[in-house]
Each structure stands twice: as structure tokens, then as C-alpha cells.
């Protein structure tokens, strides 16, 4: 019933790690983007600085999702 290769628990662990690990980073990046849009709307002149800060903070938030990905890959490939 289970596919061959790694045993079922490892495969399930891989899938669930990445599944649950990206929920909160996704929400947070969306939140950052929306607040940045609001700020640009209020003050269009500062849009350059706001954009740069938004990209910086979004990359920091995305790093959390990347940690989840690295853990999932480590579970899958390092048994």
C-alpha cells in the first residue's frame, strides 16, 4: 500500500513538515505586502524606501519557510 523507498513515517514527516512550515510565513509575507501598500498609498513619495524595506523584511520572513524546507529535505535525504 505504501510506496517503496523510505518508510511511511519518514515520507509523512517530510510532507507534513513543509506543509505546516509554510503557513505562517505565507501569511506574514502577505501582511507585510499589504502594510507596505497602505504606506505607499499614504505617502507615494517615499515609495522607494518603503519598497526596499518591504523586500528586506519579506526575505527575512521567507527565510523561516526556507528553514522548514531544509528540515524537510534533510528528513527525506538523510533518512
Amino acid at each position, binding site marked *: 500500500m505504501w510506496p517503496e523507498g523510505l518508510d511511511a513515517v519518514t515520507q509523512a514527516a517530510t510532507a507534513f513538515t513543509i506543509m505546516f512550515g509554510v503557513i505562517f510565513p505565507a501569511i506574514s509575507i502577505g501582511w507585510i505586502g499589504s502594510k507596505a501598500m497602505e504606506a505607499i498609498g499614504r505617502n507615494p513619495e517615499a515609495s522607494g524606501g518603503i519598497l526596499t524595506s518591504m523586500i528586506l523584511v519579506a*526575505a527575512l520572513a521567507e527565510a523561516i519557510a526556507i528553514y522548514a524546507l531544509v528540515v524537510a529535505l534533510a528528513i527525506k535525504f538523510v533518512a
Partner: protein
Amino acid sequence: MNLKAVKTPRGCLTLIFIVLAVGGLFAVGVLRPEARLPVISLAAEEIPIPFQDPVLHVPNTLPSTWLTMLILIGIGVAYRRSLRKEGPPSRFRVAVEGVAEGMLGFMQNAVGKKARIFFPLVATFFLFITISNWCGILPGFGSIGVYVAHHSEEAAATEEHAEEHGEELELIPFFRSANAHLSTTLALAVVSVAAAQYFGFKVLGAPYLNKYLNFKASSPKPDPATAKKGLEGIISKFARVVEILVNGIVGLLEIILEMLKVLPFSFRLFGNIFAGEVLLFVVSFLFAFIFPIIFLGLELFVGLIQGLIFAMLTLVFFSIATTSHHGDESHT
């Protein structure tokens, strides 16, 4: 489209060569259908150097690092030579100067006057990471290599099955994206954090240690003549002692926090680049012809952004390390 160039003999030959090359690759791809998903390994593989018992462990990200270094040093040397030419500056020189000036302007916007001190290291981080990420999508990375017999461990344990299993061949590529190896990113992160401490000492001098050894309170020690007596005096002295202790412990924790910064730096870069590599492998395995162009574009973007992020975060940490903390105690 300027098609006049094709009508010359040289243009004709070039066109025929391109058609033959692409057609040949197409034919090879179609006629050899044993498409194997490349072995995706989290750790960088060692290049098997012939006639060497593995004394030299050369991981396959090292040649990619050499390539990046070659490109950067080449650009530097070529710029140096173009400075000596007379006449109006060439386009190459204008481009290099434009890039450098753009980076310096960006840093001055972010940090102010100290940008000149930080510029060499931060610009190097940005250029090295971006160019090594972009080199990772050159053709040949991850695809040109040697096949090495890879005995699975169960086959080695039972001798009788060894011949029946056959040897599983594993492709060890000669080149692999330089930042897809945790050692590279760890080295960059350690240099970044160590340089922050160095700049802190260089700009602030010995008072930089006040950030870590911070056994101070927010109000000065009360004069014995004007001190409060009785219960109020005891409580206020006790509160002051507690405040000093807490500030001190938080200061010592800052040391640990500084060292912990190495981890997110390295894992962010490694995770992004390695995941991009895996994505490209899988997508090329699924449909090798026009479809991966989208993902190559994504890799270009991600490579640039990761270089930018690393450089910007490094700059921010340098700036924090070189700001003196005198303004913090006057809150209450």
C-alpha cells in the same frame, strides 16, 4: 529583425552550426530515453580525482567558486587596464563605474557617512553571491560529470546479492552552484558577523564592549545625603540592584545572539539556492525543452535578491554595531 547578417557566408555558417547543435541535442534527448532523475544530494559531492586516494576532498562547489573568483578578478583587472587608456571612457568602464556608484549611493541612503568604510566588504558580498548564483544556472552545472558506482548499503551487507543488484551509477557533477554547499554560506556568514565586531571596535574603540558588559542602571547612584530613608530607601536600592543585574545578563545574552546570527544568514542563502537547484533538476526532468525557461528566470531573480538581502542585512548589522549606545539610557 536585421536579417542581412545571415546572408553573408559567415552568417550562413553560423546559422547552420546553430541548427545542427540544437538539432543534435534534440536528437540525443529523444533517442536516449533513459532519463534518470539526477541524484539530489543535500551535501556537496566530492569530485573523484583520479590516482588520488581521497586525500584531497574537493567538493564540487569549489570549481564554481573558482569560476566566480575568476570573473570578479577579471572584471577588476580589465577595469584597471581601461583606466590607463586615453580618450573618452569606454562603455565597459562606464558600466563598472555605474554599478559601483549605484551600490555606494544605495548604502549612503541607508547608512549615511559610514558607507565608505563598509563599502568594500558589503559590495564584495553582493557581487560574489549574485555572480555565483547566476553562474549556477549556466549550462553544464549539475549535468557534466562522472558516473561513479554507488553501492547501496544493503547490497554491501549481503555479499550474495551484490552481483544481482548490479552497480547503481550515480552522476557526480563537476560543477555545482557555489552557494548550494553549506560550507560556503557558513563561511560568508561567519565573515559577516566577525567583520561586524571588527568594525564595532574600529569605529567605537573599547566602548564597543559596553554593548556586552552592560552592568549599568538608568539612574545614577543616589547620593547618601539625599537618599530616601527607611523602607523607601531599601526598596529603591533593591530595585536598582535588580536593574543592574538584569541589564548585565541581557548584555551577556547579546554575545550569544551575535553568534547565533550566523545560522539564519547561512541557512537562508543555502536553502534558497539549493531549493532552486532541486527545482531546476526536477523541472528539466519533467519536460526539458521550453518549460524550464520560466524557472531559469526565477532562479536569476532569486539569485539577485539573495545577494541583495545578504548584503543589506550585513550592512544593517554593521551599522548597528557601529552606533554608540549613549542615547539609550535616557528613556525614563
